[in-house]
């Protein structure tokens, strides 16, 4: 059985806005969601930069649902509510065994992890630990809380693969519908901003530090003056649906997922492998039954790390040459890690709809060490788009690529 899989709903919270349309408008305007604060200095971090979700009130979630949610799950559940509303999904369709969840994050709620393990360090494992603390820190906290909050009885998959988490979330949901195991998949990922997560990248010297006093100028994907990534938070949920199901209920269809592939570099835990990235993109093209020349735009992972951008751009050049436009949205929103794949996919959905490419913010002069590509920079570019390839790559050598098409 092979069915067509369409996108019928989007909901998100991001450093660029807390609705899909605000996010898109701000992307088109070339706005930056990055800000600077010195509150991480006492922790020894060199970067002051971050992107956060603003004007979010967790009190919109009822207490009994919220008590098991750290911020990461609160953002995930809120984005999912917006996606359900956007898709006009009925209660019967949501509370249905043919509806499943495929949702990830880097890990469980980091602030709750601090509560949990902080008590262990104090020498009293029960002090301060509430009945729900573990429910906030478990790696599948987003998927589990979405399932409980919306009474979704179908299969639940938690793709907790850090920066590839939400692209895998979409990919696994797509595969399940394509193969006839689900009719609807609630897909995506989330991340909460916390000093501990930022410190991981800071320790690895992968955060941007030269622009601490000019936050809107960083990160700078593919630029010769980039100096690292900026850690951000957010959440995004995309509703995938069997095409027949969507058409029969009169759903508005944003686009179609036509290809997906995920692999492992199997080389190094943090240094990306050009070969692994190559194989991942080729796998997605193969799944979509498309050739490189069919792809009209590539939405890169493009984190603005020194080696990551070189590896990805060279892998793209190797397959696509310099004829296919490429950009990264991390110049606008930073690296939202567990949410980056789905937020950037939301950007791709809008670009497909509006036939317009978003440039890489802060890309002025492409690094000569990066691949020779058609980098979209400066202004938005009107462009005929039928097929988009979207990349996400994570620590551990985990790669994920999606192909999304106009419906």
């Amino acid at each position: 059985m092979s069915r067509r899989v369409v996108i019928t709903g989007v909901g998100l919270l991001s450093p660029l806005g807390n609705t899909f349309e605000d996010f898109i408008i701000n992307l088109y305007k070339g706005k930056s969601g990055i800000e600077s604060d010195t509150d991480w200095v006492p922790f020894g971090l060199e970067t002051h930069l971050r992107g956060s979700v603003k004007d979010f009130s967790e009190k919109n979630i009822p207490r009994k649902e919220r008590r098991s949610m750290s911020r990461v799950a609160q953002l995930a559940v809120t984005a999912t509510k917006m996606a359900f509303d956007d898709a006009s999904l009925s209660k019967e369709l949501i509370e249905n065994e043919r509806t499943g969840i495929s949702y990830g994050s880097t890990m469980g709620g980091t602030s709750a992890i601090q509560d949990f393990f902080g008590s262990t360090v104090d020498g009293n494992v029960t002090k301060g630990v509430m009945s729900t603390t573990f429910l906030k820190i478990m790696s599948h906290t987003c998927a589990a809380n979405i399932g409980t909050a919306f009474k979704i009885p179908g299969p639940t998959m938690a793709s907790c693969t850090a920066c590839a988490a939400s692209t895998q979330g979409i990919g696994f949901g797509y595969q399940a519908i394509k193969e006839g195991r689900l009719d609807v998949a609630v897909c995506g990922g989330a991340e909460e901003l916390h000093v501990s997560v930022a410190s991981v990248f800071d320790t690895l010297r992968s955060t941007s530090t030269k622009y601490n006093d000019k936050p809107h100028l960083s990160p700078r994907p593919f630029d010769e003056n980039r100096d690292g990534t900026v850690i951000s938070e957010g959440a995004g949920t995309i509703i995938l649906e069997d095409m027949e199901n969507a058409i029969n209920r009169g759903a508005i269809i944003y686009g179609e997922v036509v290809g997906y592939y995920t692999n492992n570099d199997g080389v190094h835990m943090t240094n990306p492998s050009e070969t692994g990235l190559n194989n991942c993109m080729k796998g997605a093209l193969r799944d979509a039954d498309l050739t490189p020349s069919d792809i009209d735009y590539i939405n890169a992972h493009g984190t603005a790390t020194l080696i990551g951008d070189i590896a990805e751009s060279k892998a793209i050049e190797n397959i696509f040459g310099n004829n296919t436009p490429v950009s990264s949205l991390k110049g606008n929103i930073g690296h939202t890690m567990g949410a980056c794949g789905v937020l950037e996919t939301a950007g791709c959905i809008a670009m497909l709809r509006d036939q317009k490419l978003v440039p890489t913010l802060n890309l002025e002069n492409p690094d000569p060490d990066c691949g020779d590509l058609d980098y979209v920079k400066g202004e938005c570019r009107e462009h005929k788009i039928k097929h988009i390839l979207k990349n996400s790559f994570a620590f551990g050598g985990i790669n994920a690529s999606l192909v999304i098409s106009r419906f």
Partner: protein
Amino acid sequence: MEISVELQEKIVVKTNEIMRDLFELSPDELKPESRLYEDLDLDSLDAIDLIIAFQKEFGFKPENEEVQGIRTMKDVYEMVYLYHEKR
């Protein structure tokens, strides 16, 4: 030894404060006759958190059997009185 009326009042105030903070209840809802499960919409996880909070605030950890018999706010107050009397 039976505890003073003054201490009973203090226990009620402190217990209500814990209930408000933990479960986001309004002062109006916290009456002696309020039923924990039916009126205040608490459940088994909330009961555990209440015990954890009591342990922290009053320094005692009720046995499971004692907690299972509690139905109303009045029962909660009396459980705390009892522990103070035993001290």
